[in-house]
């Protein structure tokens, strides 16, 4: 029995982190997930459009919800930021009929209306709650063994918890559980629930790098060999800007950062190239080499 979702790709997975989309498509079949991609969906607004125009931003989300509703499917997100923004929008629209009506009037010109019947779920949540960790363990072919993996949750998949209602915002477990399920050891460190600084990295780079660098260094000092995140915006900050963050805080970081589905794919024995690992700025060769060696042994 397949779990079927409307896949909301968001911007980054079709833009600056194409490896996220590639690795997602490479693993979901193995987990019993089938998707119909919402190819006509827009940006969710990322919380930025909403700063200028709250109702307009809600309309962007509601437009996507209406598309999924027509398919009769719940939405699967693969971006922590999309999850936070769209999950929050969905809660507001479902709990406030006057707001839903106002937003639907914005969609009217396009012949769309959202009735408030769908749910929005991140891949991480679907793996933990619907696929189940046992099923995931069944698919693990290369145990990631004594690799120490630092979870980096990202803000919007945790907070505000009243909008999300999945994980504990102070002591989240979901990503840690998935790391254990692929046979690796999760690294515990305070920065795992903090901010990567990405939203201000273009205009306030010094502040963002200090935040980013502190989190990476803390994970590294706690023994991490690699980091994993369910948010591609965090990934951009942690990977693309890592070298600059290291210079900013005066530390040698060199910590590879994986997208969640890349970590799952490596454990499933999927070749690194098919997961887009060659696209990272921080080299992942050392990790891939360890895994390839294990594969040849087993």
């Amino acid at each position, binding site marked *: 029995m397949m779990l079927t979702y409307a896949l909301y790709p*968001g*911007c*980054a997975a*079709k*833009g*600056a*982190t*194409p490896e996220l989309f590639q690795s997602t498509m490479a693993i979901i079949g193995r987990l019993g997930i089938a998707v119909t991609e919402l*190819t*006509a*969906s*827009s*940006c969710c*607004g*990322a*919380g*930025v*459009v*909403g*700063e*200028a*125009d709250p*109702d*307009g931003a809600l*309309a*962007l989300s509601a*437009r996507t919800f209406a598309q999924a509703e027509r398919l009769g499917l719940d939405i699967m997100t693969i971006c922590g930021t999309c999850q*936070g923004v769209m999950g929050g929008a969905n809660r507001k629209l479902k709990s406030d009929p006057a707001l839903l009506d106002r937003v639907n009037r*914005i*969609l009217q*010109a*396009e012949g769309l209306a959202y009735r408030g019947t769908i749910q929005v779920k991140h891949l991480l949540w679907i793996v933990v709650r619907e696929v189940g960790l046992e099923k995931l363990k069944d698919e693990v072919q290369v145990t990631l063994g004594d690799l120490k993996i630092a979870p980096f949750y990202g*803000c*919007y998949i*945790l*907070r*505000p*918890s009243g909008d999300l209602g999945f994980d504990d*915002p102070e002591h989240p477990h979901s990503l840690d559980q998935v790391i254990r399920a692929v046979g690796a050891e999760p690294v515990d460190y305070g920065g795992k629930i*903090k*901010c990567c*600084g*990405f*939203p*201000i990295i*273009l*205009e*306030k780079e010094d*502040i*963002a790098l*200090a*935040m980013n660098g*502190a989190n990476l260094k803390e994970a590294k000092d706690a023994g991490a060999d690699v980091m994993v995140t369910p948010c591609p915006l965090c990934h951009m900050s942690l990977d*693309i*800007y890592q070298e*600059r963050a290291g210079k900013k805080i005066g530390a040698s970081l060199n910590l590879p950062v994986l997208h969640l589905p890349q970590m799952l794919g490596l454990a499933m024995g999927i070749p690194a190239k098919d997961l887009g690992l*060659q*696209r*990272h*700025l921080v080299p992942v060769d050392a990790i891939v080499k360890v895994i390839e060696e294990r594969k040849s042994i087993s």
Partner: protein
Amino acid sequence: MRLAFTIQRYNPELDSAPRDETYHLDVTRGMTVLDALIRIKNEVDGRLTFRHSCRSAICGSCSMTINGGEKLACRTSVRKEWERHGGITVGPLRNLPVLKDLAVDMGSFWSKVRAVEPWLTPTPLEGEGAYQFHNVDACIMCGACVAACTVHEVDKGFLGPAALAKAYRFVADTREPESARTARLASLQGPTGMWDCTRCNVCVEVCPKDVQPMEAIIRLRRASIEAGYDQTGGARHIIGFRDLVARFGRLNEALMPLKVIGWNLRKFLHILPLGLRMLLKGKVPSPWHSAMDGPERVRALLERRREP
């Protein structure tokens, strides 16, 4: 010193009439009548009923009759009462129905307060939601949001959630003259001001009074852009982001940095090396093509939003 406390007990559901009961208690220096009642309830008779909350003469919950006068038990000294009256008798507020022991039904009191319509009748305000302080007045200045702020952690000069939320409260107040409002917004545009916030939501999560400081900061930013402060990096980010979504339907990361830095050669040269490395890794999307089907529909939606 051991003193006697005479307290009126009455449960209208069981008792035909109120009766006095006397409790003996060792009293300590600085003890209030409320402290004594709490100790009696904890140590002698758990059925004794009275209201109390803040213990600081703010909430008014523990008003009762002490030695014949209406007083707050939390700010009534046992020693002074004893010196003045030679004993301590405690009863409920007079002339109000007793619910149990020292707790009375305040319903008639509140209906009288409401009857006088205790609020200002304002002249009609212009614009929808013109007088929304977004719950900022609920702030109790506990400092939790500033302590937890992920930006403040690395940027100690950042004004932070509590102060910025407080600033928003005055920006939103239509009683402030336009010139003062503009000056207030202007003073918050620089480094350490409203544009340092990453919207990480930590302040929203930890606030014990649901002030949602981050939402207040977002409203400060919106008010700034509307007031014409649209050339800071943060404002350019918001405006540029919306422009790109209106053009492509989704965000185009190849063009986003250019929207923020504008025609600034120094800043361009600063981001160029990263851009080139991303290009080599296939991480720069086409600046000419949309990644979605039918971006013109999103453009139309956002353009409709801009019409007055």
